[in-house]
């Protein structure tokens, strides 16, 4: 900064007759802005409003306001410095958690995450309390609202652990207590206005606005990136191999074709799946198929076959096709059957860049799927074998199959199996969610694919 020139001196002299307003004089202190930020930060982080994404936005703004407040006060005493460190931990931990929430990955330990969060908050409140006491001691201020804030926070944590749904009376009591604490904290802020002048504000390299913009901007970008990347379940696609069949595999293919399985499907089966289906003596095609959504019109219709083996075991073969312009985001294929299934495998086929490609389906642990009707009511619930996948962009001729062994039919006469291909919403969602049964609503556009179900009559016909 250049030394003062005549113009600066003239301005300074002129202001002797033009004192600033009362409000300006009140605001010229190293204390007020910092403590206001801390109080605002505490208000935003202690409560969460679970709508319009406010449960993520407000704490993000809150932790950074708290950090900025303690950043100014950090040189005042060691307690404020401790609180400043705690606010950094809190801001970093929230940053990481908000990004993780956009991905399918869970933190390594949920307990560690909770303990860290509570420890940061307690350290922060402890630092604030002791820091205020140290400043106020020479001036004889007696109020101690931060002690009550500490007690309030501990009660809140205890309630969260012991009674997750405490009910309205407790909730209203907690809100009222919090409002009183904040009110008391504001009074202390005003009382300590005088001693605030003794403090020396710590210098900063980045303006508060820039820190706030950098934190929130980079967080929004990282969350968006994580959500987009997490909303794809890439396939381990490989070109379809054009090997010549051995006599043995050619014989199996002929056997399956003779059992009226579609020739195109039989020809696409790799040797390991052919081996599984080898020896089938009888096949029954789906009866009473219930087409939902847009069923593909190519040669691979949505079909279900029950293959009967000499030892009485049964394997299901589901063949399904997908819309050519279906989503490239995450899809969830769910196979449900009212008998227990095992050895569930599957494969996808598509053409990409003119090449015929194939990829295995990776089935996860069975999960629960709910069907929800127009009025939001759950009308059915079932367990299903599920696999997540995403079609490559610009791929065509999408189809696939799933093979499963039926272990034990609850009632062979009425056993049925159905494959549901549920796509996620067209855009990534926050927080991360797999496509769930909640999305599987009758008539919704994102439901597509195979609704063909099998009223499996193999046992009945056999008997």
């Amino acid at each position, binding site marked *: 900064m250049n030394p003062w020139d005549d*113009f600066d001196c003239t301005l300074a002299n002129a202001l002797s007759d033009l004192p600033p307003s009362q409000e300006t*004089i009140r605001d010229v202190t190293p204390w007020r802005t910092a403590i206001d930020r801390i109080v605002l930060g505490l208000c935003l982080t202690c409560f969460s409003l679970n709508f319009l994404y406010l449960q993520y936005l407000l704490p993000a703004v809150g932790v950074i306001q708290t950090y900025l407040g303690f950043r100014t006060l950090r040189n005042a005493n060691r307690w404020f410095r401790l609180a400043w460190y705690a606010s950094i931990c809190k801001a970093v931990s929230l940053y990481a958690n908000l990004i993780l929430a956009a991905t399918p990955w869970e933190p390594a330990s949920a307990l560690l995450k909770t303990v860290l969060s509570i420890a940061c908050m307690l350290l922060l409140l402890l630092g604030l309390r002791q820091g205020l006491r140290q400043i106020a001691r020479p001036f004889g201020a007696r109020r101690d609202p931060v002690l009550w804030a500490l007690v309030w926070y501990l009660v809140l944590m205890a309630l969260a652990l012991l009674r997750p749904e405490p009910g309205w009376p407790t909730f209203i009591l907690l809100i009222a207590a919090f409002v009183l604490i904040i009110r008391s904290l504001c009074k202390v802020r005003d009382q300590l206005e*005088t001693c605030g002048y003794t403090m020396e504000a710590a210098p900063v390299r980045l303006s508060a606005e820039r820190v706030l913009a950098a934190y929130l901007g980079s967080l929004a970008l990282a969350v968006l990136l994580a959500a987009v990347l997490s909303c794809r379940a890439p396939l381990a696609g490989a070109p379809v191999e054009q090997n010549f069949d051995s006599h043995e595999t050619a014989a199996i293919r002929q056997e399956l074709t003779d059992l009226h399985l579609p020739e195109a499907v039989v020809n696409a089966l790799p040797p390991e799946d052919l081996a599984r289906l080898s020896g089938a003596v009888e096949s029954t095609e789906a009866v009473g198929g219930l087409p939902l959504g847009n069923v593909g019109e190519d040669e691979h219709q949505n079909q279900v076959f029950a293959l009967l083996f000499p030892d009485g075991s049964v394997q299901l073969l589901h063949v399904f096709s997908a819309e050519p312009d279906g989503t490239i985001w995450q899809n969830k294929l769910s196979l449900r059957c009212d008998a227990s299934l095992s050895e569930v495998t599957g494969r996808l086929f598509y053409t990409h860049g003119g090449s015929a490609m194939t990829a295995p389906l990776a089935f996860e642990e069975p999960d629960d799927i709910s069907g929800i009707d127009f009025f939001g009511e759950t009308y059915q619930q079932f367990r299903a074998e599920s696999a997540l996948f995403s079609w490559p962009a610009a791929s065509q001729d999408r189809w696939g199959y799933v093979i499963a062994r039926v272990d034990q039919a609850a009632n062979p006469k009425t056993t049925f199996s159905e494959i549901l291909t549920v796509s996620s919403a067209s855009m990534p969602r926050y927080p991360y969610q797999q496509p769930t049964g909640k999305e599987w609503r009758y008539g919704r556009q994102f439901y597509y694919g195979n609704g063909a179900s099998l009223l499996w009559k193999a046992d009945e016909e056999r008997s």
Partner: protein
Amino acid sequence: MTDTELLAKWQTDHDAGMEALLAQYAPLLRYVIGGVLRDRQDAEDCFSEVSLTLWQKLDSYEPAKGGLAAWLTAVARNTALNHLKARLRREKHQPDPPPEVPSPEEALLRRERAELLRRTVDALPELDRMVFYRRYYYLQPVGRIAAELGLSQRAVEGRLYRLRQRLRETLGGDDA
């Protein structure tokens, strides 16, 4: 203790009243003086001078015209500024200037310019106005302004530069 209680105490017992007033407002007075005078000894001397001024002038304070804090700020600021000017003159071995007695025309012109400055400053955005008063009323160094407002030094320097340009354009040249 409220300002009214402080003043009542002063009215009944000057010693006790001044003691209470300084107990409450000494940090503010030192803060204002410290912005103008960076030398610790200078600031301490000035604080004594301000205390003496308060003894002499506290009776002239009119609550209807503004808060006690604003009045004390003005007393501390003007005393410190005079202290600084006197020290600079001593350093340059310059004699004290004769008391300035403006002519009626000069006084009128000065009032008009002061009014223009007030309007210009009132029209500034809040943060700019705060930076302006801290720099030209409180005479604070850029580093302190930056730290207390949570800004970087460069940001404050940039704002001050733009402010000066604007004021020069509005007020005209080197005269305010």
